[in-house]
C-alpha cells in the first residue's frame, strides 16, 4: 500500500497538478495507512475510516482554479458542471463544500458528501477523491476532477473574465509559470513501418510515456495504437499512457478473436480511422486547450442544444476539423474517420485530439503538439481580446 501511495504521490508531483508539499493518500486493507502532508494524511485516514472504499487522495491543486470556481458559483449552488466529455460521462458534475460549511467536524461533512460521489472540491483544502478498489482509482478520480476544473475555469474566464480579487494575478502566474512549452524536440521515434510485434509494443509504450512526460495529456487519458498487417496493437481500457508495458492488446482486424474485449473503448474509432486514412499509427489524447477550444462555437441562433453529441457540423480550429460525438459506442467513431483522412488530425468536441502517423509515431506526436499549441495560442488571443473589450 505504501508503495502505491508513493507511486501516485510522485505522479501528482511529476505532472505539476498538485502542490508537492500538500499531497496525501490513505489506503485501507485490514488497517488504514496514510502518508504525505500530515494534516491532509490525517484527514484522508479519517475519511477512509468512514467510507467503504480502499483508497483516498487529498491534495491541493497546484492551480487555484477549483477554489476560484467555487467562489464564482452563486451561493445557493452546491456543484459545478464542466461541459467536457470526461465530466459528462464519468463524473456528471462536481460537488463542492465551501470553507464555511465545514463546521467543527470537517471529516464528517466531507465524508457525507464524498459518500455520494467519486470526488469533490473542498474550498481551501483541495480536491478529495476516493478509490473504491485501489489507490490508483483515487488518483484517477483526483486527476479527472483537476482536469475538469481546469477546463471549466478556462472556459469561464474566457466568457466571464476575472471576477475575484487575485484571479488575474493567479492566472498570469499560471500562464507564465505553470504552463510549459509544448514540444516534441529531443524525442526519439522509431522510423516506420513498424512490423515486429516486440518493436511495436516497445514503441507504443515509449510514445505513451512521451505524451505524459511532455505534458500533452494527463496520464490516465487517451489511447494509442499501431496497425501492422491484420493486427491493431492498441492500449487497453483504463490503461495509463505512461505505464503501457503489458497493457497493449493485439486485436485482429477481422474480429476473428475477442480477446481484445479489454482494448480501449475507442477501438472502433481506431479501426475506422485506419480503414479510411490508410495510416499506420493513431494517437489520441485530451490536451486541455484543445478540449477548451473545441467547445467554443461562433454559431448564433443554432437550434442544437446537446452540441457534444448532436452537432453535425464540421468546424475548424485552424486547419484542424472539429466534430461532435460520444465516446465508445457513441458517435465519435462515425464522425472522426471521414474528417481525419485529409488533414491527418481531428478534434472531438469537449473530448480530445486524434492524430495519425504514416509510418511511425513521430508525425502523429508532432501533429498533436501542433494542434495543442495552436489551441493554446488561440485561447490566449481570444482571452486577451475579451479582456481588452472589458
Amino acid at each position: 500500500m505504501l508503495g502505491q501511495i508513493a507511486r501516485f504521490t510522485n505522479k501528482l508531483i511529476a505532472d505539476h497538478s498538485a502542490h508537492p508539499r500538500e499531497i496525501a493518500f490513505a489506503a485501507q486493507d485490514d488497517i488504514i495507512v496514510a502518508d504525505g502532508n500530515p494534516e491532509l494524511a490525517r484527514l484522508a485516514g479519517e475519511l477512509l475510516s468512514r467510507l467503504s472504499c480502499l483508497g483516498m487522495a487529498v491534495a491541493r491543486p497546484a492551480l487555484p482554479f477549483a477554489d476560484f470556481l467555487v467562489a464564482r458559483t452563486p451561493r445557493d449552488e452546491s456543484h459545478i458542471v464542466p461541459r467536457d466529455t470526461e465530466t459528462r460521462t464519468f463524473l456528471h458534475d462536481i460537488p463542492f463544500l465551501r470553507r464555511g460549511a465545514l463546521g467543527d467536524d470537517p471529516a464528517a461533512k466531507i465524508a457525507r458528501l464524498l459518500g455520494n460521489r467519486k470526488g469533490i472540491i473542498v474550498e481551501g483544502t483541495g480536491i478529495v477523491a476516493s478509490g473504491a478498489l485501489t489507490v490508483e482509482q483515487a488518483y484517477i478520480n483526483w486527476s479527472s476532477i483537476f482536469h475538469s476544473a481546469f477546463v471549466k475555469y478556462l472556459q469561464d474566464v474566457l466568457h466571464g473574465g476575472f471576477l475575484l480579487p487575485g484571479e488575474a494575478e493567479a492566472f498570469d502566474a499560471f500562464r507564465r509559470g505553470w504552463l510549459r512549452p509544448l514540444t516534441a524536440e529531443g524525442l526519439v521515434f522509431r522510423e516506420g513501418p513498424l512490423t515486429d510485434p516486440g518493436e511495436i509494443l516497445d514503441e507504443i509504450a515509449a510514445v505513451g510515456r512521451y505524451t505524459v512526460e511532455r505534458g500533452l495529456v494527463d496520464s490516465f487519458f487517451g489511447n494509442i495504437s499501431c496497425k501492422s498487417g491484420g493486427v491493431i496493437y492498441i492500449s487497453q481500457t483504463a490503461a495509463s499512457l505512461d505505464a503501457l508495458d503489458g497493457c497493449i492488446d493485439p486485436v485482429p482486424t477481422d474480429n476473428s478473436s475477442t480477446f481484445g474485449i479489454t482494448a480501449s473503448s475507442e477501438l472502433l474509432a481506431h479501426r475506422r480511422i485506419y480503414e479510411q486514412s490508410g495510416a499506420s499509427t493513431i494517437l489520441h489524447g485530451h490536451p486541455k486547450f484543445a478540449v477548451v477550444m473545441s467547445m467554443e462555437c461562433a454559431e448564433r441562433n443554432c437550434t442544437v442544444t446537446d452540441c457534444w453529441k448532436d452537432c453535425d457540423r464540421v468546424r475548424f480550429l485552424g486547419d484542424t476539423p472539429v466534430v461532435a460525438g460520444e465516446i465508445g459506442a457513441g458517435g465519435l467513431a462515425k464522425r472522426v474517420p471521414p474528417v481525419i483522412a485529409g488533414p491527418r488530425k481531428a478534434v472531438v468536441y469537449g473530448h480530445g485530439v486524434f492524430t495519425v502517423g504514416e509510418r511511425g509515431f513521430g508525425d502523429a506526436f508532432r501533429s498533436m503538439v501542433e494542434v495543442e499549441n495552436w489551441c493554446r495560442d488561440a485561447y490566449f488571443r481570444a482571452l486577451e481580446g475579451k479582456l481588452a473589450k472589458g
Partner: protein
Amino acid sequence: MVSSVKTLGWTETVLRVDLSARKSWRDAIPRDLLHAYLGGRGLGVRFMRDHFRLNPFDAEIPLIFSVGPLCGTPAPTAARLTVVTRSPLTGTIYDCSAGGRFAWRLKGAGLDAVVVTGRSAVPVALVISPDGAEIVEVPQLWGRTVPDTVSALSGRGSVAAIGPAGEKGVLFANIMMGEGNSVGRGGLGAVMGAKNLKAVVASGDRQTGIADPQRFDVARQDVMRLFRASPIIFGELGISEYGTPALVDLMRQRRMVPTENFRRTVFEASGNYSGPAIRRDYNARKDGCYGCPIQCKKSTPEGEPLPEYETVSHFGALNGIASLASIVRSNTLCNELGLDTISAAATLSAWGEARGRFPTADEVPGLLRDTAMRVGEGELLALGSCRVAERLGRPELSMSVKGLELPAYDPRGAYGMALAYCTSNRGGCHLRAYPISHEILRKPVPTDRFSFSGKARIIAIAEDTNAAVDSLVACKFSFFGATLEEYAELLAATTGVDYSPQSLKEIGRRICLTERFYNCTNGFGMKDDLLPERFFAEPGSSGEGIEIPPVDRTRFAEELQKYYRIRGLTTEGTFDDPDFLLNQP
C-alpha cells in the same frame, strides 16, 4: 393491512402462499424493512431469518421470489428478481437472480415478494394476477420439460417453471424462466420440486411509480452513456455483440481456462466455441432480458438460446470436448430438463477424472438425461460433484467450495477470484465479488491478478456492493460501465428516499453479514472457506510468457484472515456476538 400511502418504487406487499393448506394471502411489508434491505436478495435473506435452520427439503422452508424497487421502471437491466432459500446442494443460504419478463409481471401484480411454504399433495402451479393468486392442480405437467410447461401455461402469464430435474430433486436443478433465463446453481429447482410446485405464473401489468421522473431520466441517461463508453458492454468485441462467450478468447489468452477438471488451464480447441465461432456457426442474434439495452444473450434465428461463457467452457474445456455442436446440445438439454449447466458439466468432469476418462461428446446427452431422471449413473451424478467424488472415494476431485462447483475462471490465474470463491456465502461462485471485473476486464480499474495485496478489502467491498446490486435488483453486467453512484440516483429518484453509494454498500454489508451468520449458525466456518487442494499443489498451464504457479497457501491464509478482520469475524471466520441478528433491522 396494506398502507394506503405507498412509497414509490415498492408495492409494500408480499404474497404468502401455504401450499399445504392451499391458501394464499397478501401482507404488508414494513416500510423500514424495505428501506433497510431494498428488495431482491436483501429482502429474501431477511425473510429467511426465522427459517434458515430448516432442512432445504423441509416442507416449511420458504421459497422466496423477490423483486426490487427498480423493477418495472425503465432503469437499465432492472427487470430482474431473486429467488432465496436454503440450498440443498451447499446447505448455505442461497439466492440467485434472473432476468426475463417474469419479474416485471410479478411486480406488475402489485408484489415485492412471494413467499411459498408448505408442500402440495399434488403437482400445482401458482398463478398470480393483480387481483389475487390461484393454486391450480397441474398433474398433467409433472414430468414435462421446461419448454412444454412454459408452452402449456404461457397463456396465463409469464412462467417460471421447473423441469424433470427439479421434480426428481437433482441437487443442482434450476428454476427456469420462460424466456430461457435460469435461476441457477444451488438446486433451488429441487426445493420447488419438493413442494410439488411445478410453476409460478405472473400476469401483472401495473406500472411502478417514480417519485422524480426528471431526476430519474437524468440518471438513466448517465447510465446509458457509461454503457456506451464501456468496451466490455457495447464495444465491438463486447458482450452485447458476442454475449459472454466473448470471454472465451480472453481466458485462453490469460491461460486460466479450467481444463479437464482443472488439471490444466489452457484448452487448445477453445477457439471452436469462441464468441465469433458461435456467431459464425449459429448465425447468432441478439437476445436478452426484458427491457435490457445490453442484450447479452444470444440465440439462433429460430429462438433457441445459445450457451453462455460458463456453459461453453465447462461443457467444452472442462470435459475436454471440442465440438461446439455438442456444447450447444448440452446447453439446450439442460435448459429443457432444468439442470444447472455449470454444476452439471463440473460434476461430469469430476466423475470423469475419478473413473479415468472424461465423457465424450456422444455420451453427454444421455448422461444429462439420466441425471435429470435420476436413473443409471444419473442417480449418483444428480448429487453434484462433491457427493459424487466422496462416494467414489476421491473427495479431492470435486472442484468446489462449500459444495458449489467452481465456474470457468481458474483461481490460479486470478488471486482475488481465489479468495472470493472461498468467502462467498453461497459457495464457489464468481458473482458474489466478481473480481474478474477488475483482475481480467480492467473495470472499473485494473488490479494485479497475480497479487493478493489489498484483495481482502477489495473482495469485502465488492461483496457489499454486489449484495446491494442483487437487492435493487440490477444485472452485474451494468457495472462494467456504470457504478453504484448512478444506480443510487435511480433508486432515490424512483423511491423518493435518499440513497448514496455509501449507504447502499452499508446495506450490502448488512446482507452479507446476515448470510454469513446464518451459515455459521448452521456449522460453516473457516474449514469451509477453502479451495480444493489441487490449486495449492499443482500449477496451471504456464507458457507464452505467463507463469501459472499454484496458489501460495500462506498468502491465501493471510488474506483470508485479513478478510475476517475486515468483516469483524473471529479468526475462525465466525461471530463473537450470538445476538448479531437482534441488532439488525
